[in-house]
């Protein structure tokens, strides 16, 4: 067993200013167990009274070693771990991983699978934003928001359970298509959800938009300028809250996002309130995308017909010798894509999520690197929180929607 020891403040000493070392300012440890860090983030705060002078994020408390473990799994097996990276966006992680594998193997995905992928990814975005809204509002004292948001989140999870049998870690999207077709009740269930949601979003607005405390604690807090966004390489709702209309679904459409009509909500203020507005408006846009997807959901297969990479349907195995051989080969050895390297990126609820994959022609990836949005966005916390009160730091950390599984991988 490797040696387990605690990280002490001394190891972060090179990051701490001389003022703190001389005792002029105070060093305060926040986390890794703190209800407002949304996981296991540790922030070393340098305080001048109640005012934040500097924030030093210490990450890695949820380092899972996914990238290394992926090298010892074959392509189908490694996908299972991607669910658990950014655990609020499993469908999106699967999608990104599958896009990378499909790029590597030049697999074609049938239109029905494409449309279902988009619907599921957008449902996931809504559920992620709901959880963010619930927990962040809870941090700022709006307790009831948490209960309302979790109520609606259950509706999305019920849909996921309907299609895949699992609530969160579905691994439903597979290289070359989907695991299986969606059941017949899928369309009505999603339509019920679409019908219910706009009223619920209105309810959240009513609860928060007229809430003096919430407005006071979000407006003008944690301002991030456009230049900061570019300099730190941020992405997602964080930059859209600073007025940058950058969304990979529009800029680099994947899975047929170019066929859908939707807007990118942006707000120029760059404060916590703007980021909150962006996310709430994104939920409405996601509902639009889902509705369009359902309206033009084509019929047909949900898996590519390329038997070298995609297992044959169960029904064929009993009657076709080839199908049996392919099935056996794919589930014992896995498939062997040509050598090369690819990068595929999607817009996760937190920003640009990318998968870089290198193949050496064997059944296992030579290297899988995950480019995660939270990791980049976390850099902005010190910039946003300087000269604010320590109480505002809670809202600021919440506003970038950190998921530590995403940052630490």
């Amino acid at each position, binding site marked *: 067993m*490797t040696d*387990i020891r*605690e*990280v002490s403040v001394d190891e972060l000493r090179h990051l701490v200013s001389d003022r703190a070392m001389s005792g002029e300012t105070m060093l305060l440890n926040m986390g890794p167990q703190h209800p407002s860090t949304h996981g*296991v983030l540790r922030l070393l705060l340098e305080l001048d009274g109640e005012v934040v002078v500097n924030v030093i994020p210490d990450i890695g408390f*949820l380092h899972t070693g996914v990238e290394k473990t992926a090298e010892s799994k074959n392509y189908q097996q490694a996908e299972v771990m991607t669910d*658990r990276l950014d655990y609020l966006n499993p469908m999106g992680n699967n999608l990104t991983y599958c896009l990378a594998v499909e790029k590597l193997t030049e697999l074609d995905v049938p239109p029905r699978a494409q449309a279902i992928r988009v619907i599921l990814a957008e449902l996931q975005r809504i559920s992620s934003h709901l959880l963010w809204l619930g927990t962040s509002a809870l941090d700022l004292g709006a307790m009831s928001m948490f209960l309302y948001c979790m109520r609606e989140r*259950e509706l999305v999870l019920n849909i996921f359970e309907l299609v895949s049998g699992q609530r969160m870690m579905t691994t439903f999207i597979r290289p070359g298509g989907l695991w299986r077709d969606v059941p017949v009740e899928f369309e009505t269930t999603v339509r019920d959800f679409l019908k219910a949601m706009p009223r619920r979003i209105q309810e959240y607005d009513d609860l928060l938009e007229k809430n003096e405390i919430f407005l006071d604690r979000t407006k003008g807090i944690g301002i991030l300028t456009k230049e900061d966004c570019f300099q730190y390489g941020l992405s997602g709702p964080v930059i859209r809250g600073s007025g940058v209309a950058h969304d990979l679904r529009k800029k680099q459409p994947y899975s047929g996002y170019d066929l859908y009509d939707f807007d990118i909500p942006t707000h120029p203020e760059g404060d916590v309130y703007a980021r909150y507005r962006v996310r709430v408006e994104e939920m409405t846009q996601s509902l639009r995308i889902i509705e369009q997807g359902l309206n033009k959901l084509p019929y047909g297969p949900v898996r590519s017909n390329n038997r070298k990479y995609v297992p044959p349907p169960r029904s064929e195995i009993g009657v076709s010798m080839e199908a049996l051989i392919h099935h056996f080969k794919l589930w014992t050895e896995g498939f062997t894509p040509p050598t090369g390297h690819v990068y595929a990126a999607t817009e996760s609820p937190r920003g640009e999520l990318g998968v870089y994959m290198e193949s050496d022609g064997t059944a296992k990836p030579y290297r899988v690197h995950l480019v995660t949005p939270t990791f980049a966005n976390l850099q902005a916390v010190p910039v946003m929180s300087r000269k604010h009160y320590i109480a505002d730091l809670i809202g600021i950390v919440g506003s970038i929607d950190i998921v530590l599984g995403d940052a630490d991988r």
Partner: protein
Amino acid sequence: MGLEQKAGNMGIVTTSLEKAVNWSRTNAMWPMLFGLACCAIEMMAAQAADYDMSRFGMELMRASPRQSDLMIVAGRVSRKMAPVVRKLYDQMPAPKWVIAMGDCASCGGIFNNYAILQGVDEIIPVDVYVAGCPPRPEGLIHGVLTLHEKVRKEKIKDWA
């Protein structure tokens, strides 16, 4: 033909100290507000409207280990986090219980590698293991009720 029959008419219930204490411990067990990874989201779902763990006297999640009786290890424990988890456990006042929620906390789950502790029982004693990746909220509630059963059977001579 004893005290119970006479006292029953007066609205008095008699029991043993053991039972009374165990009963109060099960019905006011405060879990620590402490999430690690994916399972923490399901733990939150168990607390929220649809599943509502407060039915079992557990609505109060305490952020401080010094005020909590139950530690739900919800998620994978990395080697960097392990000393912190141990320290939190040490800070909890006795009597204290631990639920390992999910496969990662129970046995490492799918992450058999250098970074993840192969089960939180390597560092702290675990009372109940809840299987699933992640377990459904019902699964967690079942784990909690199993723990309640265990606590109800505790003997007076075992109290420290």
